[in-house]
């Protein structure tokens, strides 16, 4: 009996404390993020230091765009920060995004990395690379198509192909080659798998280091994070692999973006736009490049030296908006060939 009476008292106290912090104060911006904020907390801190605007955030890998849509006109969200072009497209589909009216952003970000109608902008760019074993693979130029080459039978590792990064790659393949060839490609890659798709991109490096497989798909920045992080085991994984910037046959490298939208009902719209302007500024772009090992989207900001050692990135010129539109079909194809099973 005592337990729950006390519980009630504590709970009402707790609720009161929480309510007290939820009002709209001047000088705030509310961020919903699909990206772990710890990954760019330095940028957010710098923003607060420079502008005096406090950043409030919640993080979840999925479901936040739906939450903004459900919250409607009373949503506290000002900005949704997300990775993957598909997620940005989804925010548009849910109707939660409003045009980002900012000359600063328009001049900082190349047009192909922004929504034609200005409802999202990229903040950083990453390449879908192929990690290969330093010991066992000598190739320095690979194509995405070659992952289906029978010579790699039993040698390929990847995370789930339903993960947005691989769905986007598959969607890009559809844009390039059409559905039929993409399906054959998926079947070919599946036939080469050393193990069931699982884990994340870092696990591909881990598995290559452990000798489970010889090559696999992984995003470019993980190599930098693993090699230069404080986790000793991950340093060993990074040391065992060499990232290759692959190309499509007759094309270039598949890139994806992290990006942001300003919400339709943003209570702190001006601050939201200030935040996005800050994140596309040379300073913040340099942090993305040096701390997160991503490719800056702003011309003139140099790629981090470690990332530059992978070779010069030549992004495929296809429109990211087209990739986003093909992702539903891509995900269905992945299911049809039973890739993850």
């Amino acid at each position, binding site marked *: 009996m005592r337990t729950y009476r006390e519980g*009630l008292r504590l709970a009402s106290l*707790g609720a009161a404390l929480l309510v007290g912090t939820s009002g709209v104060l001047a000088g705030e911006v509310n961020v919903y993020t699909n990206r772990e904020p710890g990954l760019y907390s330095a940028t957010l801190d710098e923003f607060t230091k420079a502008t005096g605007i406090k950043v409030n955030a919640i993080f979840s890998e999925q479901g936040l765009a739906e939450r903004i849509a459900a919250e409607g006109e009373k949503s506290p969200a000002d900005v949704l920060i997300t990775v993957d072009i598909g997620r940005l497209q989804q925010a548009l589909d849910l109707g939660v995004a409003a045009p980002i009216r900012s000359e600063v952003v328009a001049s900082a970000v190349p047009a192909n990395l922004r929504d034609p109608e200005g409802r999202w902008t990229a903040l950083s760019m990453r390449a879908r690379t192929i990690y290969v074993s330093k010991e066992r693979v000598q190739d320095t130029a690979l194509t995405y198509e070659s992952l289906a080459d029978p010579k790699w039978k039993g040698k390929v590792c990847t995370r789930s192909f339903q993960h947005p990064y691989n769905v986007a790659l598959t969607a890009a393949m559809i844009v390039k080659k059409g559905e039929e060839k993409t399906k054959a490609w998926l079947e070919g890659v599946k036939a080469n798998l050393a193990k069931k798709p699982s884990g994340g991109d870092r696990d591909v490096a881990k598995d290559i280091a452990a000798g489970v497989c010889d090559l696999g798909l992984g995003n470019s920045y993980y190599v930098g994070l693993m090699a230069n992080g404080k986790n000793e085991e991950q340093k060993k994984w990074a040391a065992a692999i060499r990232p290759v910037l692959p190309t499509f046959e007759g094309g270039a490298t598949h890139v994806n973006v992290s990006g942001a939208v300003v919400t339709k009902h943003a209570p702190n719209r001006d601050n939201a736009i200030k935040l996005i302007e800050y994140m596309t500024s040379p300073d913040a772009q340099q942090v993305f490049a040096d701390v997160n090992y991503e490719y800056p989207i702003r011309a003139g900001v140099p790629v981090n030296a470690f990332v530059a050692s992978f070779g010069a990135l030549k992004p495929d010129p296809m429109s990211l908006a087209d990739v986003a539109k093909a992702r539903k079909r891509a995900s269905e194809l992945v299911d049809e060939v039973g890739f993850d099973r």
Partner: protein
Amino acid sequence: MTAFRFPGSRVLAWLLPLPLAVPTYVTALVYVEILDAAGPVRSGLRNAFGRGIADAWFPEVRSLPACIVLFAFVLFPYVFVAARAAFLARDPSIMAAARTLGSRPVHLFLRVALPLARPAIAVGATLVLLESLNDIGATEYLGVRTLTVSAYTAWLNQSDLAGAAQIASIALLVVALLLVVEELQRDRSQYHGSANTTARGEPVELRGIRAGIALLLCALPVIIGFVVPAGFLALEVVRRELLEAAGPALIGHLWTTVFLALAATAVVILWSIAIVLAARIRPTRLARRIGFVAGLGYAVPGTILVLGLFGPLVGLDTALSRAWELATGEKARLILMGSGATLVIAYVIRFMRVGIVALSAQLAQTPPEIDQVARVLGARPAALAWHVQLPLLRPALGGAALLVFVDCIKELPATLLLRPLNLETLATVVYGAASRGSFEDGALAALVIVLAGLGPIAWLTQAMERTPRGGARAPLPDQAAF
């Protein structure tokens, strides 16, 4: 554990429920870390026997079989706690009678003890079933394609919320069906023991090699389900000096977690009391169905539940803030979503079943004659509930509350999606670290979750130990009405 006594058996009675304190996703993360191709175990084997041999026979940890084994070890305490309570509470005279009729020990167990405990084992097994079904974190991490994961794919990649809802409904239908079958079976078989017997069933003393085997068998689940994961976390905390680095932030997260869990637990318990008593006093189909439906939230994967909740919760919230605006003239934001109240509501929906099951089990143990006597003596339903049945429920309240509390502390998916800005619980801290690809950084938070669950679980065991043998007071015993 109830029929025999061997060295260490008393301690084990305390240790066996402990795996319940470790969230399934944490156990999955830890075992992948240890048993993966790059982990210490396989690296060691490889150094000892060479790459070919060591890798050829070693089972893959990210697989369906591994996932099943892992779930079994984490969730088995649900069955253990329920079954043990039932074995302790059973009427020893039945066993004695069987023995005098010449029943051999194996027969005694298979033909007498096991059938008597079946309802309790079923209650525990149902909880295990539901927990496995609603899991997304561990299964996804282990690369197992369950219905839940499929629902996710449909929703996230194919923007097909209707498809996701369909798949989720299939899962829910399977659960509902299983629950109904379980319940129908129980209806047909009523087990009555004399609750007020004073006789005690004395456990048999085991010695020598047999005691050793018993000890090993009973210790194994504790080691796999608790000692290894908790030990791994503790080791990481020490190795990375996380304790030294922990700031007041973590204490803040701990308090937030406890506040929310306490609030939700209070609501669940009060509400469960109302539902259980209603079904007892007016045992109509409607009353039972309400209890059944109220408990269904437990079977739905948290994230899918939340997606369904967004609409109604925000609708209610918008209405509330409109009312506030009308009353005060000030502009108001979302009150429930902004205050964490939505989290409490979501926890209540998710864990209602735990409270209902525990309380109705307690009530089912008191013979209906007691109610009849009270009614004959002129007690009206309210008085019957207040003066007779509520006091009868008291022994189970603590246990029920603790089970709900531990579940709330571990809760992740609803917390992630419904929390107000800047709010972190211990579970979201662990999730954040895992998302950054450095799960070890969250080891301290994970360890605190485990420790926070330890107290309540130990308390629960102690309550069970106090129960006289042959008596009827156990928190998760053998006859649940739902």
